[in-house]
């Protein structure tokens, strides 16, 4: 097994996963592992299948073949709405916020999978409901402070600039206390300083919040600087896997990106 041996047990095992859309093979027998405590980069040219893989992990797309194990149990038997509770949080390539809700409410919704009060308990406001609300508010408040969203906590998210909205999405994902965080192009649309801050942020999330990260990113210097391991895809196939240095030198990777640039 490649990658950093200081890391813990295998958290995510993707095994021979394929996805077709009509005639298009979006993923073709993909296999790789992510270990606890790793930051794993997932790279590849446009249309390589990176987002499709994320959508399989979120159960938004069904896998045609293959198997995925998360935290030692089969992921594909968990329903879509159970993924957050199982411990996988994510952000979306094209923002998927709740646009009419405030920043605070967006982040508090992230706590949904860690809370349990139902319709009846809320309607009659059983004593545990306000307690749960206080806990969720506190948790969301911490994340809002952590991501420097304090000034806009009450603002409606659709009024905020793109970069801020991306941080709201990250806060919302972290509110579900994930073991594994899927980040789909977190650097896109950010300026130079924001990108370098993002690198530090991702490391902080791994080191201090103990969240394993799977990172899809086109911004090569970011991926190569934060990742313990990089997996490269092209046309739905895995073309390389290894340390950033190994993958960067891999002839097929160079070929894929040169081909892409032509």
């Amino acid at each position, binding site marked *: 097994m490649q990658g950093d041996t200081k890391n813990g047990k295998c958290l995510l095992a993707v095994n021979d996963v394929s996805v077709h859309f009509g005639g298009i093979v979006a993923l073709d027998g993909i296999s790789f592992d992510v270990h606890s405590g790793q930051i794993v980069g997932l790279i590849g040219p446009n249309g390589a299948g990176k987002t499709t893989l994320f959508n399989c992990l979120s159960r938004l797309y069904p896998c045609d073949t293959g198997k995925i194990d998360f935290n030692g149990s089969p992921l594909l038997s968990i329903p*879509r709405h159970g*993924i957050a509770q199982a411990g996988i949080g994510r952000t979306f390539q094209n923002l998927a916020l709740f*646009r009419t809700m405030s920043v605070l409410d967006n982040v508090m919704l992230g706590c949904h999978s860690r809370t349990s009060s139902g319709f009846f308990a*809320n309607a009659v*406001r059983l004593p545990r409901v306000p307690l749960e609300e206080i806990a969720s508010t506190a948790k969301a408040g911490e994340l809002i402070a952590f991501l420097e969203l304090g000034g806009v906590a009450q*603002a409606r998210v659709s*009024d905020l600039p793109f970069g801020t909205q991306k941080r709201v999405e990250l806060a919302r994902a972290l509110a579900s206390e994930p073991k594994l965080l899927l980040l789909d192009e977190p650097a896109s649309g950010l300026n130079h300083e924001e990108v370098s801050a993002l690198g530090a942020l991702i490391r902080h999330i791994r080191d201090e919040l103990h969240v394993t990260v799977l990172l899809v990113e086109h911004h090569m210097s970011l991926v190569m600087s934060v990742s313990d391991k990089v997996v490269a895809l092209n046309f739905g196939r895995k073309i390389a896997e290894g340390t950033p240095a190994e993958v960067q030198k891999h002839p097929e990777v160079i070929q894929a990106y040169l081909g892409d640039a032509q």
Partner: protein
Amino acid sequence: MSRNKLIFLVVLVLVACALPFLVSNYRVFQFTLVLVYAIALLGLNLLTGYNGQISLGHGAFYAIGAYTAAILMDKFGFPYWATLPIAGAVCLVVGFLFGLPALRLEGIYLALATFALGVSMPQLLKYHHLEKWTGGVQGIVITKPDAPFGLPLNPDQWLYFFTLVVMLLMFLFAWNLLRGRIGRALIAIRDHHVAAEAMGVNTSIYKSLTFGVSALYTGIAGALGAIAVQFVAPDSFNIFLSIVFLVGIVIGGLASIPGAIYGAIFIQFIPNIADELSKAAPWAIFGIFMIGFVYAMPFGINGAIRMLLARFGRKAQTGGPGSTITESSLKTKEASQ
């Protein structure tokens, strides 16, 4: 809830309590219907305003509630108050079951499916095998309850207060439901259902349950309406009623709790006013009112009132940070209240 809001609410309730002693019995009856419609509209607003599921058939749930109450009173001798929880429970179940297949339908397709429900309800009620219960085209006549415990109230006044108490309770439950975990999930489903599901919201269950709860509200309103009108007949619950409910929540203010009351006042009194203005074309006048309201208040009456209060408040406080209210920040507050 802020202190000002609470004071405002208390004043409003006091005014509502004084009202039946100040106006004629017929007006008391009309105000009772306002309270009834407010409950129905709140139910529809839960579904359409907050959860984003359009219903063009809520008149059907109103009818089921009304007939449940009428049949229980007329055929089984139930006291009027005992019919409400049963009407609510029946509509909860029917609404939930209708909501399950409706999960496959989005937006305008759901509107069509609910329209089908609304449009077929009068005919179902006339169905001759059910005539034994429903009274067929003739409907069912029920008697108006008297005030209990020797209270010095006439039946109209008593029913008004009874309805007011039920309404306040129903509004309290809805406010509780919407201000916490469930309310956030409902709005999240409306705004981005894929993201809501990815964050752990069981969108199917939530949407069907919301359908059920919405139907429960409208069904309880239907039961109260039947008791107030003392009569149910299939053609009082035609598709027009469903459309008027939708008009009510849009004019009152989508996704707002007080909007249900404003909308109820609109759908109760504007047709009367239109009728007085022109006997020949009251619905044309009603239409003009509707267009006028929508044009002048694009966020409904509730939105307009909030905007006014915000402007007023800003002048009074000479504006600290965060006091600038834009239309969109207004919507956030609405959604989160």
